[in-house]
């Protein structure tokens, strides 16, 4: 008995060895340093090192909750991330379905490349592209678009906070949906053709085919991507919230998120304990949310849960 199980396991040995460098890297880079999380609870002193510094309990976490700003940044972080998940997923699925219907392979390739391109552009360059549109002095919108539409005034985009939820969602969508589309497209392509043939025989319309076949069969992939995004719900793309608004103070009420708040607050102080506390807070919340969401999904449809 034991020898046959061992023999079975041996068949997977090459795969295990292939995975070994990656696993070792994961262990050394991600798991072992977790011990250093204690820094978040200590008052770090260079002379005493991590293990010798004194414990100060939760004091390093206070600055994240103490002020009115704390509510603003938490609200901003969550709302933006929820918005990003919903909008990006919706658009990516729609575009993936549309792309899967295109007959000619050449065009398919071209479109995929074009929509994936923004994902690869550095966010700093993107911030300057946005600046070219929104600059109060020389921007495209103020100088060209508004006069063309007959609108007389010019808006100081970088001074008005209220436009930025929309602007940042658009920028994030433009930059990110290509990546998701490619993923969804690859899973659509993997759907068995016989389903479509059967549907055609039954006289289903295009829309019905999409609703009843395509979407239900890619729900597992969508669920997986959404669950993974939920795990990062307290993190933000630093470049998106710091570079794109050009670090303009007047926009803070709608563009300040946890990451940028910590950065601005600690640049001068350089306090290692406080920044570790912020990181711990973000990952802990993300972890709890992933577990909870996974539980919910498992109750609703056990096949789609991550684990």
């Amino acid at each position: 008995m034991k020898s046959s199980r061992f023999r079975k396991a041996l068949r997977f040995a090459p795969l295990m060895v292939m995975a070994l460098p990656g696993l070792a890297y994961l262990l050394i880079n991600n798991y072992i340093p977790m011990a250093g999380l204690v820094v978040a609870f200590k008052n770090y002193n260079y002379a005493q090192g991590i293990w010798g510094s004194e414990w100060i309990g939760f004091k390093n976490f206070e600055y994240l909750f103490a002020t009115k700003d704390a509510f603003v940044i938490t609200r901003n972080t969550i709302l933006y991330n929820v918005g990003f998940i919903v909008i990006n997923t919706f658009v990516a699925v729609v575009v993936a379905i549309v792309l899967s219907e295109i007959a000619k392979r050449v065009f398919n390739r071209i479109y995929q490349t074009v929509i994936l391109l923004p994902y690869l552009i550095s966010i700093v360059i993107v911030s300057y592209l946005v600046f070219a549109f929104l600059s109060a002095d020389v921007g495209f919108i103020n100088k060209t678009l508004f006069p063309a539409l007959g609108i007389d005034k010019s808006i100081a985009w970088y001074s008005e906070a209220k436009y930025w939820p929309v602007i940042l969602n658009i920028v994030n969508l433009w930059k990110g949906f290509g990546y998701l589309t490619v993923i969804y497209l690859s899973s659509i392509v993997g759907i068995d053709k016989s389903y479509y043939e059967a549907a055609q025989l039954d006289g289903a319309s295009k829309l019905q085919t999409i609703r009843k076949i395509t979407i239900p069969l890619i729900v597992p992939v969508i669920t997986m991507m959404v669950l993974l995004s939920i795990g990062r719900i307290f993190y933000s793309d630093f470049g998106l919230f710091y570079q794109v608004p050009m670090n303009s103070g007047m926009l803070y009420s709608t563009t300040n998120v946890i990451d940028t708040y910590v950065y601005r607050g600690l640049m001068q102080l350089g306090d290692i304990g406080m920044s570790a506390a912020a990181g711990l807070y973000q990952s802990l919340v993300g972890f709890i949310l992933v577990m909870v969401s996974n539980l919910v999904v498992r109750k609703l449809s056990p096949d789609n849960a991550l684990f």
Partner: protein
Amino acid sequence: MKKTLLIVALILTLLTMAACGNGSSNPSGSTPVSADGEAGSGASTPDNNSGEPVTLVLAHFGGGSLPDTDIVAENLSSITEELINVRIELLPITFAAWEQQINLMVSGGEKLDLVHVMMNNFSTDVAKGKFLAIDQYMDNEAKELKEVVGDAYLSAGQIDGIQYGVPSIRDMAASYGVCFRKDLLEKYGFNADDIKTVEDLEAVYEVVSAGEPDMYMTYGQGNSISIVNQLLTSRDDLGNGFGVLLNRGQDDFNVVNWFSTDEYRGYLDMVRDWYLKGWIVADAVTNTESATTLVKGGQLFSFCTNLKPGYDKQAGLSSGYEMVTSTISPAFSTTTQVGVLSWCLPINCEYPSEAMQFMNLMYTNADVVNAFDWGVEGVHYVKVEGEDNLITYPEGVNESNTGWGLNLGWIFGNQLLSYVWEGNDPDLYVKLKEFNDTAIISKALGFQFDATNVKNEVAALQNVTAEYRLSLEYGMVDVDENLPKFLQALEDAGINKVIAEKQAQLDAWLALQ
């Protein structure tokens, strides 16, 4: 058999590839530290008992490419080896990576013997135990240094009366004023020397803006320091600007909230007026161009800045036009200004005594200073014909191909001992010394604020000032509407607590004087 062989071959290939991948990624990730670390251990056997020269690792700012670092270090070492039997290894680190890399080196116990520290981190770094106390060396190894620097300046490197760092000698005071384009100023009949007050300045702007409607009249220093901050600074900011002493620290020792004073309100109203008249660069808050770049592009007439002797020549070089300066706010020294950069010994310094001996040379020996500032004579610089302390590039060398284009003389020891680069006033450092000696000195010089007890409030306050300050101080928003919001936000973030803490520390420091 064939199948097993294939599998084994595949596994071996993958392992080798993984190893290669990991190996090649290391140098790019940690080039400065690992490369110099290895060089250091190989260079000489550190043993200060047997007469072998001791090697010190000296970390400093190094922007851009410095391909001749080893040559310069060798040259410097040859001088120091003769004098004090010490060899120096230079470790240039870019400004952007500085904080991270020094933190890593100190907490990782890597060899690091001399490092310079900027003022905004000094007191927190000392509180965190990063540096050695150097009092015991001040009367022996660093005797001459103590005389040259002087007690007043040395006090800026002390915390609670204990010496941790030595400020470099450079411009130890700052005056504030405006730098104009000379041609335009003269075109409209003004003379830079006559402009002494803000009223004089406004008169100039009125006339020039009428004549040059497409130009901006004034600006600050880029999008991080505003006009109010650069033109009208008459306060000792006591470290972080949250709680200041008014009138250059000449009057009393009451720490006040600068942002709630009538003086501040007056400045904001004035700047708002200027902005509405179109005198200030429109996108001031988001504009990433520096003032000199805007002057170069013909869009800006003048800008407000901190001044020191020779600034007009410097600005002239970066902007391409001849520039003149007017001083509006006279020179004064504060702890922040004096202690902008101090030299310290990190706690993992192996040879503190030798390091202090070298530091002594940095402040007293012109050869050492010039070897670091300018490089090797004949290779990186040559003396100008007939001049004793003017230098320039040798034949065939210019600023784009020089091997040692550091040009950060203000960081290294005593800049007053350094050669002057051609194009600047040969008496530059004589004038600089006079500038330093005649500046008004704040009575709080030497006081360092330790923010450890109010860390959370400071973090919140930094966010508040980042949100409101620039737009108010460039006049971009309505003062009546936004100043109350700013003041309220400061209170909510705890500025009164910080001020009370600062006052308590200041009183305690005064008691020790």
